[in-house]
């Protein structure tokens, strides 16, 4: 076999034409694969049961009453107990229904309630816009609307928002404003069903710290030690 003569053009196997043909083929392959991916039939999403919300992994417990035993001064111990209770009292779950105006607040951010509502004659809303227009006996998971059989606002005399913890404390102990004796106050905090909702608020609301039982024990110990208020 002889070498090609000088007049025979040398074959350029990887020339410019080969480059563009390859590029075109790659481009075509990408288009085909892309269309296949885009047009491939997918199952339509079906409705599924709503998964139960995960149990709270961490409960922010209140300090046990025994934690305060080492405070020798009775008044100082009482104040410390109430300050611990203040973690619940000043939690949005409680404060939202103790507004300074006739309008409740809502969410952890304590923003104004939407839609616009007003306490009405009994704390259960205006006659034409009752709380029960939306709120029922229990939290509704589908809509996220919270509920309780006793759903209503605290009376305006029991407004907590805008007050210091010390002012709230004085107010709680004043039957003219709280409308409660100390026994009734303890019952309200430790056993009232609507207050208990604060630890079972449903939806994406953050529960009040601890449990109602822990809170009741703190309040009982605070009253037993004289019911002293923070300054």
């Amino acid at each position, binding site marked *: 076999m002889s070498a090609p003569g000088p007049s025979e053009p040398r074959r350029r196997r990887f020339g410019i034409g080969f480059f563009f043909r390859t590029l075109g083929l790659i481009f075509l392959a990408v288009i085909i694969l892309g269309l296949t991916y885009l047009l491939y039939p997918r199952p339509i999403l079906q409705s599924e049961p709503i998964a139960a919300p995960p149990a709270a992994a961490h409960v922010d417990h209140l300090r046990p009453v025994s934690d305060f035993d080492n405070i020798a001064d009775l008044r100082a111990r009482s104040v410390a107990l109430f300050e611990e209770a203040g973690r619940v009292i000043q939690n949005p779950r409680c404060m939202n229904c103790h507004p300074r105006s006739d309008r409740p607040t809502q969410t952890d951010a304590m923003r104004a309630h*939407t*839609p*616009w*509502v*007003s306490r009405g004659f009994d704390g259960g809303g*205006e*006659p*034409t*816009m*009752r709380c*029960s*227009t*939306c709120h*029922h*006996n229990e939290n*509704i*998971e*589908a*809509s*996220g*609307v919270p509920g309780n059989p006793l759903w209503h606002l605290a009376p305006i005399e029991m407004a907590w928002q805008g007050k210091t913890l010390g002012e709230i404390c004085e107010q709680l102990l004043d039957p003219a404003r709280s409308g409660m004796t100390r026994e009734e106050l303890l019952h309200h905090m430790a056993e009232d069903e609507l207050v208990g909702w604060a630890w079972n608020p449903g939806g994406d609301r953050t529960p009040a710290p601890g449990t109602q039982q822990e809170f009741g024990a703190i309040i009982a110990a605070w009253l037993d030690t004289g019911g002293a208020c923070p300054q």
Partner: protein
Amino acid sequence: MYTISVNSQTYDVDEDGQTPLLWVLRDILKLTGTKYGCGIAQCGACTIHVDDQPMRSCTLPLEVASSYRITTIEAVEGTEVEAVRAAWVARDVPQCGFCQSGQIMSAVALLRTIPAPSDSDIDTAMSGNICRCATYNRIRAAIHDAAGTLKGAA
């Protein structure tokens, strides 16, 4: 299985008790006059009457609704309804109309409670019914018109 009373008829509904009544009305009973707006009791489009009290059907579980008499926009009736309908037509209140069945259910309930409402009464009763077309001024005027009709008829 729940038995519910809707528009003076009873229905047996085999659904989960937590199903919002709105979906029973629309998907099962095919009463589509009641609208789905938000599903979280913020807009009022799904307002119905539960023993004559306006409620949001998107947050009313079937198991709760079965204890009451339900009335929807399809069957609500009475002198207040006639007055509201006439005022709504005369004022050409709706624009897109999507919220209007809820608006009308709330307006009827308002006039049954307060036959001659003030602007403030209207604002209070209608605050939970929002309208993206912002027909609020026409709604308020039409409620005043309907109240006038009721007063004239009394």
